[in-house]
């Protein structure tokens, strides 16, 4: 399996070259084009055994689609091109066991069968913060294709950092995190416009996106006509 990224960073397009018999799972609606010999199967399940409940959980909590498309190259090699919904860059993270990758829900695009996905419940605190912090946990061996809103900055973390939740793309298992207020006081945290932030620490790789989709939406949204009730 080979990944080719074009048109970075503004409108990245990923073309995945599959050898005969190789399989790629991708988020529904991310397909741009594919060769004719690719067999497509749409399924509820993200991985063997997780079933409908598993995919519902991923859909509701993880912010990704309920459906997964599986592309298999039949007879000969082929390729499939994938694109995310928003403007921005894409990146391929190569997973090797026992490493785990925690992915912010809407940043996941595709991975082969050898990579398993699970949803991590971040507890009540993240739910109340309104930042919808649900991570997909990817583990196993193989490449994982991620997308971002804006450009992607990979960071080799060895220490500690405060990060706006809306700018997080993914991080490896060696990094721990905690949801915390942006300032010392509650009032300041609210007025600062930052609300809740993540304190991340440890050693590992961190992917950060240069734009926050929520903030972009709010900036544009206030110039649009009010939604009718």
């Amino acid at each position, binding site marked *: 399996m080979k990944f080719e990224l074009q048109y970075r*960073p*503004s409108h990245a397009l990923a073309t995945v070259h599959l050898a005969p018999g190789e399989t790629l799972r991708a988020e529904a609606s991310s397909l741009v084009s594919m060769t004719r010999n690719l067999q497509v199967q749409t399924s509820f399940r993200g991985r063997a055994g997780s079933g409908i409940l598993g995919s519902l959980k991923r859909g509701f909590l993880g912010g990704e689609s309920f459906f997964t498309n599986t592309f298999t190259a039949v007879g000969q090699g082929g390729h499939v091109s994938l694109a995310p919904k928003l*403007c*921005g860059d894409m990146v391929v993270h190569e997973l090797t066991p026992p490493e785990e990758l925690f992915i912010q829900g809407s940043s996941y695009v595709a991975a082969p069968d050898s990579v398993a996905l699970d949803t991590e419940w971040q507890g009540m605190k993240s739910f109340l913060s309104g930042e919808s912090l649900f991570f997909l946990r990817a583990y196993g061996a193989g490449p994982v294709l991620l997308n971002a809103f*804006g*450009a992607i*900055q990979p960071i080799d973390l060895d220490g*500690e*950092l*405060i*990060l*706006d939740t809306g*700018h997080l793309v993914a991080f490896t298992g060696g990094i721990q995190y905690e949801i915390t207020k*942006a*300032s010392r006081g509650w009032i*300041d945290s609210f*007025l*600062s*416009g*930052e609300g809740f*932030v993540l*304190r991340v620490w440890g050693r590992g790789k961190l992917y*950060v996106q*240069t*734009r*926050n989709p929520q*903030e*972009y939406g*709010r*900036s*544009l949204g*206030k*110039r*649009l*006509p009010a*939604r*009718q009730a």
Partner: protein
Amino acid sequence: MQHKIEHGPAFSWLRVTLERGESIRAEAGAMVMRSTQVEMETHLNAGYKPGIFQLMWAFLVALLRKLFGGETMFLNDFSTQAAQAEVVLAPALAGDILHKRMNAGQKLFVQAGGYLASSGSLNAQLRFGGLRTLFGGEGLVLLECTGEGDLFVNSYGGITPVEVRGSLTVDTGHIVAFDGSLDFKVGSVGGLKSLFLSGEGLVCRFFGQGTVYVQSRNLESLASWISPMLPG
């Protein structure tokens, strides 16, 4: 203080390295990340070392701006007591960041939504007389930036500096910032007829010598393009 503007022009962000005792001020909500050694403090946009009168005036102006321009009322101060620490800032929209080193006595006008960050004694205040344009819808709401320090302005789209020698006409939605040395007048591109039929909104005519920073996209145009496509 050192800074780097990266990932431009589509998705620029501003990376600032602060040394002990240094600080940078930024628009609320602009922080992407910071070292844990960087302290953040939130306050009302009342200018550099404000008195009680300025504070009250700032509150009134901030409220009006919040109501009409959708601007935030608050600024965050980032500072450090460590030998070196980093803070990264980004605007909300897709676009670039303009850096301008300001000296005492210099003046720069910035489109109200364009302020990202500043250092030193820089003051970014709503221009006197700006309240009038506030009610004019698409009119030009300007921040008057004076003082000494580094100023960072964000745009929607790429930024082109255009030298004015004599005069220049720019669509108000494409203005990022311009030198205070320029005279300017807001009006329609032609007569009353052209205001409605030419598809151009208001334009700003500049006179004199100085630089106008023009952005390659117009947020109002994007909003009016998307609006009819929304359900409801």
